[in-house]
């Protein structure tokens, strides 16, 4: 589960990780009040207005602006709140901005030059252990750094029995070229960051940039936190951070029916039992000349009610020109699923797109007969290749 920057910073702060301070605002007026308060707290003379949406690349998209006066705070906030922010991560449709984080300016002048670093914590799937990945090249796209200057990316793998050890935290600080107070601050920063990652059952932390300020403090200027959904049952407080405005409304609705649905931008909808077969079915749609409109796993019990809900979800998408149902009936009998499809079809009424139903497994022949004799405008298939050909023919 993704959370907002301001929420991620709340989490970090709870574990003693120093952050760029900020106050959330939902309107230009609130933003001005927030700016005054932040100045009281930190002494900052300028403010950074940051759009709060679940997407990276906000700066380049115009969602992060520097304000030098309170009038500018008001103007910029009113521009950003309500804007449709398009970044490389939002897709062309963009994301509606509902709130901004009014933050202290952390690039103030001082005794030394500020320096930006990169740091993330994530699972190394090959070893089954967490790693801290960090780089001297902060504030830019890490994939670009990895490609152009891979030697500037460092990794520390964490032994699950011992946890992050002090020597590892020191190594991070040394590799980043720090000394004196900044070094001490970095050791504390890394240690607390890893504790926060572990104790919140996160699946990814990305702090880009981590900033060494001109007075040798180490702070998180941005924070991206991704929580392990399987562990949310033991973190009710973090689950409360969910912001469904950031999610696709159809996906939210599908979730209510426990349907695993991901909206895509193609023209052929699909309904499949099992995640792997669902992905394979999407691929087959593409090979048949279409583009998948969604991923949808109906799960093990593809009964009439679930099938009907799944059809309704798929049909909400106007781009859908055909629907492919692909069920491998193992322990679920195909004739039951077929009956479910017939009932669902009749209940929904005017389905205006062709439907191809492929049922394979237990009682597949009976199921095909049931579909064929239903009088509905549904094409049936048993073999997967046959289904692929039928998708091709309806798209032609």
């Amino acid at each position, binding site marked *: 589960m993704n959370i907002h920057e301001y929420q991620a910073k709340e989490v970090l702060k709870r574990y003693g990780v120093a952050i760029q301070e900020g106050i959330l605002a939902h309107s230009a007026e609130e933003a001005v009040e927030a700016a005054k308060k932040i100045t009281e707290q930190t002494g900052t003379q300028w403010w950074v207005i940051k759009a709060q949406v679940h997407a990276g690349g906000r700066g380049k998209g115009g969602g992060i602006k520097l304000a030098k006066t309170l009038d500018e705070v008001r103007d910029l906030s009113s521009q950003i709140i309500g804007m449709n922010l398009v970044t490389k*991560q939002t897709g062309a449709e963009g994301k509606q901005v509902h709130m901004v984080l009014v933050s202290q300016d952390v690039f103030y002048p001082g005794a030394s030059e500020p320096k930006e670093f990169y740091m993330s914590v994530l*699972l190394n*799937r*090959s070893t*089954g*252990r*967490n790693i801290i990945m960090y780089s001297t090249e902060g504030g830019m796209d890490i*994939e670009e750094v990895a490609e152009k200057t891979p030697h500037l990316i460092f990794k520390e793998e964490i032994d*699950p*029995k011992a946890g992050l050890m002090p020597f590892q935290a020191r190594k991070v600080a040394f590799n980043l070229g720090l000394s004196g107070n900044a070094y001490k601050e970095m050791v504390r920063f890394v240690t607390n960051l890893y504790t926060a990652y*572990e104790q919140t*059952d996160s*699946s990814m932390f990305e702090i880009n940039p981590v900033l060494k300020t001109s007075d040798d403090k180490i702070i998180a200027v941005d924070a991206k936190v991704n929580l*392990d*959904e*399987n*562990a949310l*049952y*033991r973190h009710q407080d973090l689950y409360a951070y969910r912001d469904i405005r950031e999610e696709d409304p159809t996906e939210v609705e599908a979730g209510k029916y426990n349907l*695993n649905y*991901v909206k*895509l931008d*193609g023209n052929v909808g699909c309904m*499949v*039992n*099992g*995640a*792997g*077969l*669902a*992905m*394979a*079915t*999407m*691929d*087959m*749609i*593409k*090979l048949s000349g279409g*583009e*998948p409109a969604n*991923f949808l*796993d109906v799960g093990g019990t593809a009964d009439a009610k679930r099938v009907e809900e799944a059809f309704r979800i798929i049909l909400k998408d106007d781009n859908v020109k055909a629907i492919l149902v692909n069920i*491998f*009936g*193992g*322990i679920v009998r195909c004739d039951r699923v077929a009956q479910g499809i017939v009932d669902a079809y009749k209940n929904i009424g005017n389905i205006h797109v062709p439907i191809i139903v492929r049922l*394979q*497994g*237990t009682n597949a022949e009976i199921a095909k007969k049931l579909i064929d004799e239903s009088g509905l405008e549904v094409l049936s298939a048993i*073999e*997967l*290749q046959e*289904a*692929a050909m039928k998708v091709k023919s309806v798209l032609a």
Partner: protein
Amino acid sequence: MSVLVNKDSKIVVQGFTGNEGTFHATQMIEFGTQVVGGVTPGKGGQKHLDLPVFNTVADAVKQTGADVSIIFVPPAFAADAIMEAAEAGIGVIVCITEGIPTKDMIQVKEYLRDKKARLVGPNCPGVITAGEAKVGIMPGFVFKKGRIGIVSKSGTLTYEAADQVVKAGLGVSTAIGIGGDPIIGTTTREAVELFMNDNETDAIVMIGEIGGSMEAEAARWIKQNGTKPVIGFIAGQTAPPGRRMGHAGAIVGGADDTAAAKMKIMRECGIHVVDSPAIIGQTVASVLNVPA
């Protein structure tokens, strides 16, 4: 010889008396699997499906000689169940449970490092040796006896592949569902190695999906050590980056874990990669020169 489980395997079911455990244990027994009992803490001494229930896996092992366990315990308790089985000396642990927190699995992986137990899963359909033993939730009738080994991250896609292999006039030796989570016990490479060493397997179907690097690791191993043809498919060629496709581990994170990248490296390593999931069976047949 067979892979992981056979007619002599003695299976203990963890989470035996629950709905899932009861249903699938019944199916496994009907298939002919030697289920010797189950574990439900607090219900030791009772009988369930005419078999003994034990409080601990250690008790079950002691009383029945069980050497394989299958786990149907809810996600919050599943990691503990795996470690209990390993501690009790179980050789093959099959964990069906979906939704175990990653942090728990990091601990499990570490715990198993110096144990002899082999974990399959979690979040998997299990293991089936055709005609001998089904330790999982797959429809047994699909897996007709033959000499093709299947390793897959997915459930129904495994059944699909097995069905196609059978309809192509071949059959299945053993099918291993390794699971779709970010951390799993037996890897693609390890499963492939088991099949390469199995004298009842002539060719291997390797089915992967987006996310992680297991298929690439397996492919490189095959290039170095492979002695049998491998037919491969990667699900998720059309999956967008950054979106989780059902399985917790099925997410494109970078340039190396896309379906295209995996298929490329598999082809370079000599694997017969198919673009369409509909032609897995016929491709196996043509690679083995079996008339369709």
